[in-house]
């Protein structure tokens, strides 16, 4: 399964991939492009990846989750140019019970943010742009990150 895509991400379609006839729950998370970051007004942004490694990490995260819990996991991350409101990342978890669905979904999105080699280039309303560096300025990061 390929996790990286340049096409818009459809949560309904992603949820359909993880539902099994004996599963009753799908827990999902989508991360959307916001109109502000670090106090600056964002117009649009673009995501770039180290594709081979990003695919491998997404597959490894899903595999780890499916070893730890009795779940089915799907991960999508969009690359290229996105505008405000667009879905940048989506995680869907199918499970028999909702407790493990919530636990898995949270685990997966945390791991995606921590491990998957993807970068974000923000274009601001004032015409400037910058690569986002979550390691620069811890306070800003805690208050700003989704």
């Amino acid at each position, binding site marked *: 399964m390929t996790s990286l895509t340049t096409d818009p991400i459809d949560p309904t379609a992603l949820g359909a991939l993880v539902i099994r006839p004996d599963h009753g729950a799908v827990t999902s998370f989508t*991360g959307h492009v916001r109109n502000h970051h670090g106090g600056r007004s964002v117009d649009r942004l673009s*995501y*770039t*990846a*180290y594709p*081979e*490694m*990003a695919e*491998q990490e997404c597959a490894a995260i899903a595999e780890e989750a499916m070893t730890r819990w009795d779940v089915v996991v799907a991960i999508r*991350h969009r690359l290229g140019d996105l505008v405000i409101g667009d879905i*940048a*990342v989506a995680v869907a978890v199918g499970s028999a019970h909702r407790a493990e669905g919530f636990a898995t979904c949270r685990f997966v*999105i945390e791991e*995606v*943010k*921590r*491990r*998957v*080699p*993807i*970068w*974000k*280039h923000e274009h601001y309303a004032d015409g400037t742009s910058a*690569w*986002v*560096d*979550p*390691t*620069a300025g811890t306070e800003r990061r805690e208050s700003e990150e*989704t």
Partner: protein
Amino acid sequence: MNGYRVQLLARYAELLGAEELAVDLPTPATVSMLTDALRALPGGSALPAQPVLARNLRIAAPGDLIEPGDALALLPPLAGG
């Protein structure tokens, strides 16, 4: 001496003005020898002291050995999601 090809991702490609570079290093070569060589290039001084290098799609430690033919990539701080 051996030749190594390194991919530069995202901001690091901008800093060094290339998406891929070839670097010659004595044998045996370590990750930190490679990253030090990259930091000595024009634009390379803006790199961190120990930038993150992926070797064959896994994060490598500074003391890890590298070999010609390895898939090497220099990764800025991740910002996905």
